[in-house]
């Protein structure tokens, strides 16, 4: 069971992206462009729900957890 110290996987760094994308509303607090009638402010954040799930799934697949 004794293993050499596992190296940090760089895939984890992907998980920082959602924080950068959502924490500062200055980059998305606009009305236009609208999508299906949703102001940018709203659809941008809702899309990041999906993108974050995708990113998390990628990291889940790429990083081998302990077995």
């Amino acid at each position, binding site marked *: *069971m004794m293993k050499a110290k*596992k190296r940090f996987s760089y895939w*984890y760094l992907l*998980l920082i992206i*959602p*924080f950068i994308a*959502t*924490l*500062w*509303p*200055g980059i998305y*607090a*606009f*009305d236009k462009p*609208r999508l*299906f*009638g*949703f*102001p940018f*402010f*709203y659809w941008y*954040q*809702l899309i*990041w*729900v*999906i993108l*974050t*799930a995708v*990113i*998390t*799934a990628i*990291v*889940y697949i790429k990083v081998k*957890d*302990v*077995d």
Partner: protein
Amino acid sequence: MNWSALIVFTVFFIFVTVLGFYAARWRRGDLSLLDEWGLGGRRFGTLITWFLLGGDLYTAYTFIAVPALMYGSGAMGFYAVPYTILIYPFIFVVMPRLWSVSKKHGYVTASDFVRGRFNSSSMALAVAITGILATMPYIALQLVGMQAVISAMGFGHSGLSGELPLIIAFVILAIYTYSSGLRAPASIAIVKDLMIYITIIVAMIVIPIKLGGFSHMFDAAKAALATKNPPGSLILGSNSFFAYGSLALGSALALFLYPHSLTGVLSSSQRNTIRKNAAILPAYSLVLGFITLLGAMALAAGIKVQNGNDAIPELFLKMLPDWFSGFAFAAIAIGALVPAAIMSIASANLFSRNIYKEYINPQCTPEQESKIAKLISLIVKVGALVFILFFPKTYAINLQLLGGIWILQTFPAIIVGLYTNWFNKWALVIGWFVGMATGTWMAFSQHMASTYPLHLFGAIIPGYAAIYAVILNFIVTVVLTFIFRALGLANGKDQTTESDYRTAS
């Protein structure tokens, strides 16, 4: 009285109640052990964990209060979306470690972990007390959510007719939690989620069509917000950017410090279950985003209510058929039962394990420990009920707000503690205390608002008080650790080793 809504409501409510009573038979275990009663025997797989965590996070109060915030002030209410986005990358990285170390050492609560990691009974006690204090008003708020739908069906807000349904619902809840433990909310959570999904899908299709499409709906909401006093705005103003971001971050970091969320994590059967869930739980965030938008729809539909909490029930009654409103209200009311059950179980675990066994009766047997937990879960619920019936509702709301600020003060000990035992245990205790005191003072100084206008280098930055308090907490803890080390004070013996945090089973 709205009879068609009431009948549909009652039928669904009874169905779920019966289900709760049968839950004890499901994957039967020895319910006289705390592990079995309070963590479902740590046997929940990906799907059940998903529903259980979802049941925790998207409560009746969420359903009522988050759109109410949007209804009251506009864009600010949407912070719930980035908040729930950021939870998952965070738990993906952090929570498997907690799961592994807890499994290895038999920890049932975060307080158990802190004691093992820092060998500090004081910090463990601080964590237990903070957890219980933060959870109690949360349970009470589930009743506020439930009351909003009950009164919308024509029972009124107060008096016996308004209170009796609430009392009945809670007595049922108390009995089945007592008898089935965590298995009860886990099985109900599945039904509750299906009902909520159906409700939201229907609401998101039917209401905007009736309001002339999303574009028109948003424009009408914008116009309605402008007439409010103080005026709200559909798009966030630049002076609120930091408040918005810090509320989202602070709430995301705090969520998994609540005892009931940790219960969801610790009850899962495998480390990988948590990682998998982090990738699939965001489906809930999408639903929450849509729930929030109901607030904008209520504005556009011209709903006028004194109390924002009544906005969504009124919206349903106005825009949807009565029988469907009854269905939606049942979803919300059941949405109150699930988290209330999990929360009361989680605080009962904390009390029996970290206060009763630790300080009152160290020689207690596992059966006694589990018995006390059951009893406490009962007392906690009765307490919440009494609180809602006899005190102004604003007390519960303010306490819940304070609870959010308080719970984040356990972040250094629990979350940072998962990575390092560098902190001195007394530095942690003092840092926690400073954080608690500062956060509480900030909230009071703003007459119980969650944001505090910090004066920094001549600028005024309104931000979430919990974030400001935990930063101070951190600084104090780090500085004091350096000082204590310089004085030659040793850390307590760490019960855990790095490999404990990585084991899969």
